[in-house]
């Protein structure tokens, strides 16, 4: 496949919009800190999505406009969001009870690495012999109990190393469960054989994306450009 289109990298907002497109009708969605929180601003009303945050908000929408923030209404990233009509608030243990019991259709999380077996790492920057040091938040609960996991992350690190790997080098958040990865250049699904390229950013070829991916990337039968 060749392309003469200029190569585009998605912005964080565009990645949020791509994730939002992938939500199915009436899903209950949990959004983690970082790029995933942007998805709540891009769903359409007819998708009928219910956003639930780990801090106990059931039914919130996009980010609150500047100056109109309610100090007591925040998402998992402690960003001020708008409550939907019909919203409810529950406490922290009930919030994770809802998660643990399997009511969340998809959790969207950031990551440092995702592996071809669906494992991912997002809580510790190195295996330094101190498992008591790290930043987990709700990620392990969500990864273990949500029906599926979407990851949003840059395709490579700041120094250009791949983040899609055969195996995670960092301590994993969960040993399995990632079904979809949205990066700034690709949408990649994971099946029982590994990574499948579903969509590519405008101007990018499979070969170019494979060069930045440290595990085999098969083309989907319906490989197409990301619609932005």
């Amino acid at each position, binding site marked *: 496949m060749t392309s003469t289109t200029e190569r585009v990298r998605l912005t964080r907002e565009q990645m949020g919009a791509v994730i939002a497109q992938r939500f199915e009708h009436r899903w209950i969605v949990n959004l*983690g*800190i*970082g*790029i995933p929180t942007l998805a709540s601003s891009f769903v359409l009303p007819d998708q009928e999505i219910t956003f639930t*945050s*780990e*801090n*106990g*908000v059931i039914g919130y929408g996009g980010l609150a406009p500047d100056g109109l*923030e*309610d*100090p*007591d*209404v*925040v998402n*998992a*990233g*402690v*960003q*001020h969001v708008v409550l939907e009509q019909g919203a409810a*608030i529950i*406490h*922290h*243990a009930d*919030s*994770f*009870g809802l*998660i*643990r019991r399997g009511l969340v259709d998809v959790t969207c*999380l*950031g*990551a*440092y690495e995702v592996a071809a077996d669906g494992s991912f790492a*997002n*809580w*510790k*920057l190195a*295996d330094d012999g*101190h*498992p*008591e*040091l*790290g*930043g*987990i*938040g*709700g*990620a*392990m*609960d969500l990864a*273990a*109990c949500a029906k599926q996991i979407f990851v949003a*992350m*840059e395709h490579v690190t700041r120094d250009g190393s791949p983040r899609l790997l055969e195996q995670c080098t960092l*301590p*994993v*958040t*969960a*040993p*399995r469960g990632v079904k979809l990865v949205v990066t700034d250049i690709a949408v990649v699904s994971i099946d029982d054989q590994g990574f499948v390229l579903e969509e590519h950013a405008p101007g990018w070829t499979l070969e170019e994306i494979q060069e930045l991916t440290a595990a085999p990337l098969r083309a989907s039968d319906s490989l197409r450009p990301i619609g932005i």
Partner: protein
Amino acid sequence: MRKVTIHPTMSAAVADIPDGASIMIPGFGPGTPWNLLRALWDQGARELTLITNTIGFPATDDRLRTVGNFVEDGRVKKLYSSFTASTRPSREGVGERLVREGKMESELVPQGTLAERIRAGGAGIPAFYTPAATGTLLAEGKEAREFGGREYLLEHAIFADYAFIRAHRADEVGNLLYRRAARNYNPIMATAATHTIAEVEEHVLPIGAFDPDHIHTPGIHVESLVQIPTDGFFAVSRELTIGATPAPATT
């Protein structure tokens, strides 16, 4: 019904907290007991065990003290939290050096497990099983058991000497209401401590002001209250704290 103690000042509310106390600190942005924390800072208690969602970076506004401030000043012996280290490569977290040097203990607990350990503490349940963290580094050394073909890890209840609560409304019996997402850990922590002290945003109401059907924390769990003043040093309002506790970012 017994009325609870209403302390005249924040300082009075924390005066008797000794060195070595264990304290539950709620808050996920909103719902943080800023005034009690600030008063505890002045009071100077050390060797504390703190149970809280995130260690947080130290606050620079003099009216605010985060758990990060207490850690940085060496006042914390042990920390239970779902964020104990920075998640940014470029910025070392406040407690990491202390932990690596063996000067502070930390227990990194997945957030749902932390919430359930606190709920269990307040509900008389000594231990429970959860699927969170199976197959990860945190599972090492933990008892595991299978239920319905799936692996679960055994986790233990947490109960503290004190809980600092941030309430929106209270009555003289100690019944409490929280506002929106300021609720978070407050209801569970209120049940899981010997002494529950609540700082209250609105004027404490007389007995009978609350409808029994509309109470978040019954006063039976609450030992004392302290009114947040409308002005002055300890009047840390909700509006002041917009943006005060940005979340740690993963990527």
